[in-house]
Structures are given as structure tokens and as C-alpha cells.
């Protein structure tokens, strides 16, 4: 076990993070719910010590739930990569609100920018990628491959439970170790007009990928 801020306190910090004002369907913008984000971050730090004192990247950082959470858990620096200007603005307000300075944000298209000088540079890469369910099937796997390039150690990610077999196989062919740390239920409040129910439960797996 590694030292870590109490889970309850972490969750309280994440609860104050503002959400997308006008989520964009093309980018599959969903917020990482605070109970989910805090459990992920708590596990990453308390079980594996992969945040405190580390160089951490957050791919598709959105409004900054994981970025800010990792900064709160004393990452040496968290770099959030995000394409959308509106999300970045909200994230920046959240960063100011939380009075955190160990964060840098870079506006870029993670899928196209491929900042190769960053390769193997990060200790830990976090992401809650687009699940790739609508028009952009496979996008979460592209994010994963990029994340694995950036990290020399571990990648933590969420993927739909229904794709587990495929993901484990893909990880094997990429030569990385994949572990499902937890099965979670992503309780998505109705974000978009096409959501007919009040909220939708999506089963997701919380993964740890490690380079061998």
C-alpha cells in the first residue's frame, strides 16, 4: 500500500468540478463521475503508487476530473491533452478554483498530433477515452495505442465491458499486460437528446495496462 489522500476527501474535491456546458456528441463528451474518478485515482495511487511524484498524462482530459484528481494526489506534473476549446476553458476554471499549479494543458488532437518526443516520457497515462460506440468505432483502441507509446510504465483506462475479450486480445498482440481491476457501472445522466431514459447504465471495465 502506498500513502494516499483519503478516498472521501478525494471524492469531495472531484465533486466540485464543473461539467460540460454543451457536450459535443462528435467528441463523445461525458464527464467522469466523481465517485468513479475518485475510486480510479485512489486505486492507482494506493495500490500501485503510480501518481504521487510521477509525470502523468491525461488523454482527452475534458473538464479535468482525472487531471485535477491526479494533481490533488501530488503528481509532480499532470499534462492534460484535449482537443476542445470549450472543455479546456471549463477545465482551466476548475484548475483555478482548486488552486493547483502542477498541471499543464495542451490543446491538440490526440489522434493526429502524436507528440512523438513525449514517447516513453510519462510514468503514468490516465484516460477515460471515448468509447467509440457511435460513428467512431475503435477510437478507444487508438487512444490506448497512443497512451502505450507515451508511457514507459503503466496506462489506466476505461473500456466497455462488452469489449473485454477484444481488448484483452489486442493487448496481448501489442505485447502489454492487461488487468481488469474492477467492473464499474457508469451511470450516465441523460446528456444528449437522443437519450430517451433519464439515465443510462453502462458497464465498464477499469484496466491497468503495463509494459513488459
Amino acid at each position: 500500500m502506498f500513502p494516499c489522500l483519503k478516498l472521501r476527501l478525494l471524492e469531495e474535491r472531484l465533486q466540485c468540478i464543473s461539467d460540460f456546458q454543451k457536450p459535443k456528441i462528435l467528441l463523445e463528451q461525458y464527464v467522469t463521475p466523481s465517485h468513479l474518478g475518485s475510486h480510479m485515482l485512489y486505486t492507482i495511487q494506493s495500490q500501485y503508487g503510480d501518481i504521487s511524484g510521477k509525470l502523468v498524462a491525461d488523454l482527452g482530459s475534458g473538464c479535468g476530473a482525472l487531471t485535477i484528481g491526479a494533481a490533488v494526489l501530488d503528481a509532480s506534473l499532470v499534462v492534460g491533452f484535449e482537443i476542445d476549446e470549450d472543455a479546456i476553458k471549463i477545465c482551466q476554471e476548475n484548475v483555478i478554483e482548486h488552486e493547483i499549479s502542477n498541471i499543464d494543458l495542451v490543446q491538440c488532437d490526440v489522434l493526429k498530433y502524436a507528440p512523438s518526443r513525449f514517447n516513453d516520457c510519462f510514468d503514468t497515462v490516465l484516460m477515460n477515452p471515448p468509447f467509440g460506440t457511435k460513428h467512431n468505432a475503435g477510437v478507444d483502441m487508438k487512444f490506448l495505442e497512443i497512451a502505450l507509446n507515451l508511457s514507459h510504465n503503466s496506462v489506466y483506462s476505461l473500456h466497455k465491458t462488452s469489449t473485454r475479450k477484444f481488448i484483452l486480445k489486442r493487448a496481448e498482440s501489442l505485447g502489454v499486460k492487461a488487468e481488469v481491476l474492477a467492473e464499474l457501472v457508469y451511470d450516465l445522466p441523460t446528456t444528449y437528446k437522443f437519450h430517451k431514459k433519464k439515465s443510462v447504465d453502462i458497464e465498464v471495465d477499469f484496466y491497468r495496462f503495463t509494459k513488459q
Partner: protein
Amino acid sequence: MKLLTHNMLTSKCIKGVSVGYPLKINASDVKETEIDFNPEFVSKMIPKLDWPVLYEAADSLGKVGDLPKNIIENFENDEDFLKKVHHIMLEVEIVNGNLICPETGRKFPINNGIPNMLLNEDEI
């Protein structure tokens, strides 16, 4: 944007650019923040940095102070040196300005501390 991040950004993604590194800095607004000093982290980062690029970046912002031009020997045990690197790499921030591709002159604006590395379709 911190100089650690600058040390890793390139413009290689632009069509026809072969190296795209280092990006030139044209800063109009620079600030200094305070970040907890973690000697192990700094020691671990030093071999990963492009030192001349870090030095040059700090120098162009007028923040180089008495940072040595070359990495010193046994830096792991030199707290004074590690503190200087910590300051340059994490505490000096470019708030507004531009990053400039060394090959094409394409400017990437930095607004409120955030570099915009997005390209237009016809640049990729």
C-alpha cells in the same frame, strides 16, 4: 505552459516538416508559480530532457539565472542544482505568446498558458 512541456512539444505533425524541434518561443507574458520540490522527480527527469533546449528556452525568457550551461556531474546529490532545474522546468510558465515551428515559421498561439497545437486539415 511550463518549460518541461515545451521540451517535449514538436511541430513534426505539419506536412513536410522533418524534425520540427525545438519550437522557438516568443513570449509576451511569463509568470512564476510555486510547486513542491521533489528531488527524486527532478533527478529522474534530467536524463530525459533535451538540456540545451531547456537552457535556451529559459535564456530566451530571461529566466536562466545561474543555471549551468551543461548538466553537472553527480547532479543527483546536488540539491542546489536540482532546485534550479525544478524552478526552470516546472515553475516558470509562459502565459501568452507563440511557439514557432523552426522549419515553416507556423505559429502556435499560447493563450492563458495553453498552447494550441491544432492544425488545419490542409496542414496535415
